[in-house]
């Protein structure tokens, strides 16, 4: 068996956009280019990848595109998501993008941030759903609150996450912790802080649900 090595290295695109000597087209013979084109034809893009034209970049248009991208991205992992989680997520995203409450320089959801969020949520699988917000640059922010204790995670592009938590533990002065890691190390990073305090329903009795 040859197996496939799982590598953290980023490959150059996906196999779907590999082409035969893509950078060498002009140097290849006509026959070679015909073969290469024929192979490319066999690897047709899917209809979901047909993106609308981006004529005009009004806020309304950017919001529409951001929401559409997020929902299409969610569909790619929908087989691993509970239906109610997906429905609730879409309602939250729609609500976040009601632009009548926006400041002029607010940005809609950053697609790369949302992809980081999906990876995190499918790994953590929190029983309690987070409240969601957007940073002014369009990064998605998830927050869990239990009594006065709060965990906030900002999902950054390129699989990075930034988190901050505050725990009171029966004192008036909270202990605060923060970190920034790759999303694949988020669970490990939060582990010393007993994240089930926020993620599990056992903690919910302390706090009205979000």
């Amino acid at each position, binding site marked *: 068996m040859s*197996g496939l090595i799982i590598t953290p290295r980023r490959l150059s695109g*996906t*196999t779907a956009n590999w082409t035969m000597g893509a950078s060498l087209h002009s140097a290849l013979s006509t026959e070679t280019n015909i073969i290469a084109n024929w*192979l490319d034809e066999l690897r047709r893009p899917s209809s*979901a990848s*047909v993106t609308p034209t981006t004529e005009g970049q009004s806020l309304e248009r950017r919001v529409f595109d951001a929401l559409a991208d997020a929902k299409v991205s969610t569909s790619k992992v*929908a087989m*691993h998501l509970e239906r109610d989680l997906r429905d609730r997520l879409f309602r939250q995203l729609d609500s976040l993008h009601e632009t009548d409450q926006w400041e002029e320089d607010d940005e809609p959801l950053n697609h790369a941030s949302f992809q980081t969020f999906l990876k995190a949520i499918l*790994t953590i699988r929190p029983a309690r759903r987070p409240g969601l917000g957007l940073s002014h640059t369009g990064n998605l922010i998830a927050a869990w609150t239990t009594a006065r204790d709060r965990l906030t995670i900002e999902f950054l592009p390129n699989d990075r996450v930034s988190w901050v938590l505050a725990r009171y533990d029966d004192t008036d002065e909270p202990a605060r912790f923060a970190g920034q890691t790759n999303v694949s190390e988020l669970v490990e990073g939060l582990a010393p802080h007993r994240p089930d305090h926020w993620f599990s329903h056992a903690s919910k009795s302390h706090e009205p649900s979000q």
Partner: protein
Amino acid sequence: MSEQPYKQPPITEAVIELRFATAIEADDITKVSAALKPLYPLQQPIRGIEVRLNVPPPGQQGVTAAHETHGSRLSTEDQTQIVLAWPAQFVFSQLAPYPGWDVFFERFCRDWAAWKRTLGYRKITRIGVRYINRIDIPATAPIIEHEEYLNIYPHMPTELQSLMAYSVVAQLPLPDIGCILTLNSSSAPSQLLGHAAFIVDQDIGKDDDPPQSDEEIYALLNQIRVKKNEVFEACITPRARELFKPCQV
């Protein structure tokens, strides 16, 4: 009613495509988009550009030809049900979660009826069905033995082992239903942490004298449906089936 074999089918996209002998006008795309608006409230213009570049021998002039087409992308609020109305194509798509063939096919019949009611009969030159599956395999070791999950993958010489990525494409006839299968399998970037992903993408189409009546079109689509299930099952192993949570064990 047909049964869904899996609780978590790995289908990321299911597509039915009809191609026509003649292109419809921009006005017709507007009409059909309006007719489908109650079903697909989100509508956006789309543009396809085909560029043909002929690289000539030295001293001769090259020829470049660009052809631009305009269409409309219609979708539901959750973006899982999509219709692409192109001048010479009607593309009907379902993203995950896949609701099963019966629901998918019923939706196709409904929308195809609306298309024809609006634009009338057009000669069909190709009928195709495409199913893209992504198989997410938990990476419990640094090396994923994809052969334990798939029956389609590149055969490598013993000197060349441990692939980082691959893609294989095969085209073969399906004489019993008069179609051609294009089968594409590849590794893919995983959407899940700690997983490796593999694509099994099949396109079954009939270019040669495709049926024109609704009855015959629907009969062909149901034949293709049976065949695509057979092809998929042939491409995976029992270990892969376990990942999709079979409905009946």
